[in-house]
């Protein structure tokens, strides 16, 4: 049987990522996830949405797909922006930011990778898909 899924289409408007987190919370309750698991998914989703909103230069919508699987939740964040080269994204360290001219922002990818069990990036000049997976331990 096909696993259930939920799809969202978000306009690029400030704070629209909160619609995605509200949906994630409903799905987390359906899947009987712990509060920690639900919080981690929501936080990673916020960061992936902000990256899509701010950095992709996409002009239309960002799409979120939740794939509810037996032992995991897969969340895809899809934009139709300019893409990015992950190898050029530096891992941020607070020691390199405090007291230095370096910009304080740039934590999104680091947070996503720390909070989810696996993360894959597919990106080209026609857009980016971030696929994040949270394994379910009950």
């Amino acid at each position: 049987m096909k696993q259930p899924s939920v799809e969202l289409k978000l306009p690029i408007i400030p704070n629209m990522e909160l619609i995605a987190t509200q949906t994630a919370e409903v799905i987390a309750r359906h899947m009987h996830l712990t509060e920690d698991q639900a919080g981690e998914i929501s936080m990673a989703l916020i960061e992936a949405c902000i990256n899509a909103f701010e950095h992709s230069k996409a002009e239309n919508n960002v799409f979120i797909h939740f794939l509810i699987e037996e032992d995991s939740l897969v969340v895809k964040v899809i934009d139709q922006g300019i893409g990015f080269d992950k190898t050029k994204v530096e891992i941020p360290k607070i020691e390199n930011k405090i007291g230095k001219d370096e910009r304080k922002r740039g934590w999104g990818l680091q947070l996503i990778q720390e909070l989810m069990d696996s993360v894959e990036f597919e990106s080209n000049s026609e857009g980016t898909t971030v696929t994040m997976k949270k394994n379910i331990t009950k």
Partner: protein
Amino acid sequence: MSDFIKSTKESNQIVIIETDGYLNNEGGEAISAICYDKMKSGQNKFLINMAATKVVNSIGVSILIEIIEKLQEVDGKIGYFNLAPIVSKTFNIMGLTKYSTVFATEDEAVSGL
């Protein structure tokens, strides 16, 4: 005052800021505006009560890093209490806990900062 700032008060020469809602760029700027204004009058200890802030993003938290940096210049300190588990985890991942302190309760924060 921004809707994000629920209240401000002082205790033991510490400014305590109570927040309400999503800590995004606007929320971060609302906190920093209060801190920088109070720093002009010589105050250098701040606590943030985040009981009503269950959701944050890295842009809002990055503004807290800017506040930490400014406070270092005046030998000041900032701490936080009543954090949701995911907010506490986010602060850990971003390294804020190396330069500022997370407390469980207001009493612990006021005595421990």
